[in-house]
């Protein structure tokens, strides 16, 4: 939150308190602004918040503890499928969210431990490829566990998932307050997701400044030295994996309830890469940066989608490049040039305990 406030141009450095107010206000009224451009944008904002949660969780593993994880989407999948199994007609279970969501988080944490335990000894890029493999293994199992015994319903996915109902309100329906005033369900989802994001930020912030956070920073910066000063490296790494996974699991559950349908296609390797890109693009190790990165990269493609066509028509009178092609083109160029110009991300980490760039500055400088 503080980092985000500081990033507000001009105001951030002069009056941090006012800047914080601006950020808060923006978050609260964002869906109203989006609503004026149509429901699509509220839906996109909802997804952006899910990505913020995922990016925050991944940042815990990659940014804080320095463990490169290319299979993070697996935990998202575990959370989503937990929701699908416990709250849908698939097994005929319809448990309430306060059981399902913690269960999803718990299973994801367990999956984090299962991944973490065997790969403790691996470093850097070896770790990256094994975690990548883990993500693919989870997806392939989800895709194939319909035969010989049907567990996940295979590539067909699970449909008609229960929506989130809070205190008897099903928030996937519009809430009619008076005859002509109703609250849009997408907006309701926005605030629920926002609440989860704020909660995550508070937890992660506390964690970062705690003993645990400092231990992670120490391991990231120098594992041998960390071991020498008595940090239990093994437990700390396992904790990082499972804590990071927990956030993924919660986000997955929310995704399931929001989408109403889960299938293995949503948990491909490209999604893992997309989340990692958000973390690095925004500024690894910096909470504000990570949030900004996730929002920027989930909004950018959609902005391009709606801007590309009219702009080309106005400039050239006809469409030269399909908007989808242009979207991909600009996104890839943005990724390249952003990294060339600001290799530490949009908002680089600068606090004492959050400088991953010190740790990993390539083998060449060593």
């Amino acid at each position, binding site marked *: 939150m503080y980092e985000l406030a500081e990033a507000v141009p001009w105001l951030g450095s002069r009056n941090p308190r006012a800047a914080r107010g601006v950020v808060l206000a923006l978050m609260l009224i964002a869906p109203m602004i989006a609503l004026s451009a149509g429901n699509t944008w509220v839906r996109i904002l909802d*997804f952006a918040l899910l990505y913020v949660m995922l990016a925050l969780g991944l940042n815990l593993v990659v940014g804080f503890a320095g463990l490169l994880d290319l299979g993070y989407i697996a935990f998202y999948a575990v959370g989503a499928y937990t929701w699908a199994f416990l709250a849908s007609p698939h097994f005929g279970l319809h448990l309430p969210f306060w059981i399902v969501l913690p269960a999803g988080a718990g299973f994801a944490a367990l999956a984090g431990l299962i991944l973490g335990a065997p790969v403790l000894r691996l470093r850097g890029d070896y770790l990256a490829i094994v975690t990548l493999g883990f993500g693919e293994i989870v997806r392939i199992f989800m*895709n194939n566990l319909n035969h010989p015994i049907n567990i996940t319903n295979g590539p*067909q*996915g699970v*449909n*008609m998932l229960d929506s989130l109902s809070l205190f008897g309100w099903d928030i996937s329906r519009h809430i009619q307050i008076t005859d002509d005033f109703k609250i849009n369900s997408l907006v309701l989802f926005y605030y629920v997701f926002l609440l989860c994001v704020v909660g995550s930020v508070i937890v992660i912030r506390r964690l970062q400044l705690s003993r645990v956070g400092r231990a992670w920073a120490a391991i990231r910066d120098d594992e041998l030295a960390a071991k020498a000063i008595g940090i239990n490296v093994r437990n700390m790494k396992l904790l990082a994996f499972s804590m990071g996974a927990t956030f993924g699991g919660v986000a997955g559950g929310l995704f399931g309830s929001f989408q*109403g*349908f889960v299938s293995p*296609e949503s948990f491909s390797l490209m999604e893992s890469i997309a989340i990692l890109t958000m973390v690095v693009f925004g500024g690894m190790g910096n909470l504000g940066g990570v949030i900004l990165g996730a929002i920027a990269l989930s909004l950018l493609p959609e902005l391009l989608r709606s801007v590309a066509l009219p702009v080309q028509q106005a400039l050239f009178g006809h469409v030269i490049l399909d908007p989808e092609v242009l979207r991909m083109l600009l996104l890839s160029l943005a990724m390249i040039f952003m990294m060339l110009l600001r290799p530490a991300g949009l908002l680089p980490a600068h606090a004492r305990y959050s400088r991953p760039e010190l740790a990993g500055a390539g083998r060449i400088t060593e």
Partner: protein
Amino acid sequence: MKKTLIALAVLGTTSGLAQAQEVVVKIGHVGPLTGNIAHLGKDNENGARLAVEEYNTKGITIGGKKVKFELVGEDDAADPKTGNIVAQRLVDAGVKGVVGHLNSGTTIPASRIYNQSGIPMISPSATNVTLTQQGFANIFRTMANDAQQGSVIGKYAASKLGKTVAIIDDRTAYGQGLADEVEKGVKAAGGKVTSREFTNNQATDFMAILTKIKAQKPDVIVYTGMDAQGGPMLKQVKALGIPAKFVTGDGGCTPEFIKLAGDAMSEAAFCTQAGLPLDQIADKTFKDRFKKRFGADVQIYAPYSYDAAAALIEGMKAANSAEPSKYLAALKKVQFKGVTGEVAFDEKGDTKFGAITMYQYKAGNWVALK
């Protein structure tokens, strides 16, 4: 610079004038325009576009006003999440009906959004059985579903082509669903499934599973998946010297398949397609009109996409309204001669005339069998 500005201004006013005289009705189309099967997505979009353009030249009046239809094309990248976002975009854009999506995997979740907003959706190619069994009143398709097609393939393979059948699917919602139905069909016809093998929709190497199949000596190999894998697979069947017949579903029933399989094509290759064959469809000139307009051959589903768009427009004509709430009832009862033949829907929204045609490869083309 100034000149272009003036030109733009003039353009703006003329289109403004045109709008004053006629009502614009937007029809949405969704398919994957990026990714592995982008060529099929574009094919669908072109089919719907041709329908819209041809109806526009005919000049349609609805509710006493001249109507100009406009196709709003969106890309779902064959991804369910993107599919939902673009579905919402179309709803926001005020489309009165939607043609799409292409894959069952994106169509099923997106159908929820169209259902919530009451907009009719007709998929030209999502054949998964569950799509129309969700109890949504506004969901239709112009193509026979997997159950119909699978049982035809299974029965044909096990009764006409041999006794033993090996089935390979590509682990997509489409491939797996169809393969299950083929297996039922084979068993119903008294045949035997020697094995079920699996690949994925990005694979190019099938030697390992084909070698395994070869050892079991099946009479027929059925592949349920798309042409991009099916063509190379048939090539590898030949490279391993497997004497079995090769059958694919509608995903492989394309000119693309013939190109990709190259000299491995022989009269031992078969495919099925829902609906009538392209050169037997009611409208013989469709193929040429399509080629003339887009400079590309019809891949697979374009005629069904054309008919889906046509069904929406016919529904509007019948109800004399373009409002979804008003013309939905008319759409359920619509019956007309489309490019693929008679078009009408049953109470679930499945096509009533779900003919399935079996094709065999002969002299460079898929030729329909009687």
